[in-house]
């Protein structure tokens, strides 16, 4: 649960400005973007922690974090498994 994982914003939900459809390592889920000072644009990367975007990051940082997280092995797989079960709405 302590990981912050990068995801790419696909779209803001039309009826819910506080939620965005985000892709994380091939998994597409809704993520709450209410903590960001400004709403992200589609194509932007965010750092996600327990279903909330903590901050926006640039693509290079996102790739570096992903590479690092993938290197962690099981810890990261567990996080993605947990995300897979998530149904935020």
């Amino acid at each position, binding site marked *: 649960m*302590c990981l912050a994982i990068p995801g790419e914003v696909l779209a803001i939900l039309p009826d819910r400005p506080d939620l965005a459809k985000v892709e994380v390592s091939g998994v597409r889920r809704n993520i709450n973007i*209410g*903590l960001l000072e400004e709403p992200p644009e589609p194509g932007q990367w965010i750092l996600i922690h*327990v279903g*909330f975007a903590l*901050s926006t990051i640039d693509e290079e*940082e996102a790739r570096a*974090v992903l590479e690092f997280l993938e290197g*962690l092995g099981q810890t990261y797989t567990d996080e993605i498994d*947990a995300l897979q079960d998530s149904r935020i709405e």
Partner: protein
Amino acid sequence: MRFVDEYRDADKARALAAEIAALCEPGRQYKFMEVCGGHTHTIYKHGIEDYLPENVSLVHGPGCPVCVIPMGRVDDAIHIARQPGVLMTSFGDMMRVPGGNGNFFDSNAEDTNIRMVYSPLDSLKLARQDPDRHVVFMAIGFETTAPSTAMTLLRAEQEGLENFSVFGNHVTIIPAIKAILDSPDLRLDGFLGPGHVSTVIGCRPYEFIAEDYGKPVVVSGFEPLDIMQSIYLLLKQLAEGRCEVENQYKRVVPWQGNTTALEAIARTMELRPYFEWRGLGFISHSALRLRDAYARFDAERRFELPGVRVADPKACQCGEVLKGVLKPWECKVFGTACTPETPIGTCMVSPEGACAAYYNFGRFSRARVKEASRT
């Protein structure tokens, strides 16, 4: 050098290792605490200690939120989960944290329904789906996680949900650092400040460490190079006779933190007069509880809690490990009676716990051999 070759920017890492070595005064011992469990994880995974000079050592701090939950709180959670019509939810990391009478899995095998969720918002969804059940989210975590709970409470209020509440166990990092600074057991030369907590609280709250205690702080990212660079920055401050808070993780951490997140916390939660930390004992103003205005969402007020303080098992030395006084392998039950499969203490449960990180990655590290030969 294993780590250096493995890392994508090997040249930079090699150069940093050399600069670190050059900054160390011969004969002086340097002890830096990495406060955050995420850092501990990286340090063992990449064997970072192996690439530091002999006289620089890293001490693991209390920044693993699962590790600091006392046994009594686990028992209280199970007590709530036993009430008729209750569905308890929490993060997966909590499931194996031992209480006085077993963990959540043990209790599920009997008569409770404690479910893992990815996000507090998933608990909200469960409450919406099943109005006949009362869903209690067991909230844990430092300031990184507290805003998520706060936002979830605000949403529950907005929706007027009647069957949702939070069992709050959020802790705050600054009082824990202060307790460590005030403890006579340990002499530290500086701190690696937690990365994600600082995205929320910013860098200013650490200034007292530099000003009142005369120790430098460098807020650090999580990759091996980040940690190496932060150690370099700490040593550079010491070498130049400076003592300040620096931000190595500027690409993610804003100096002033995240105002929206801080406001959400302040609206829904307030400091508790005191809270028990596993291994560290009672620390004043070190945790959050729900404000009176959110009393109807507060599981602690809805359900009568036994609130019994349970002493840690005799064999367990988590307190010393959390304070950085003992290295994980120095605990008598490490790797024998206490393993990630059958944890006795909490530091073995979460991957961010020092004992689990060391068990998973560090067992054959040269650092251990070095350390063992010193004692």
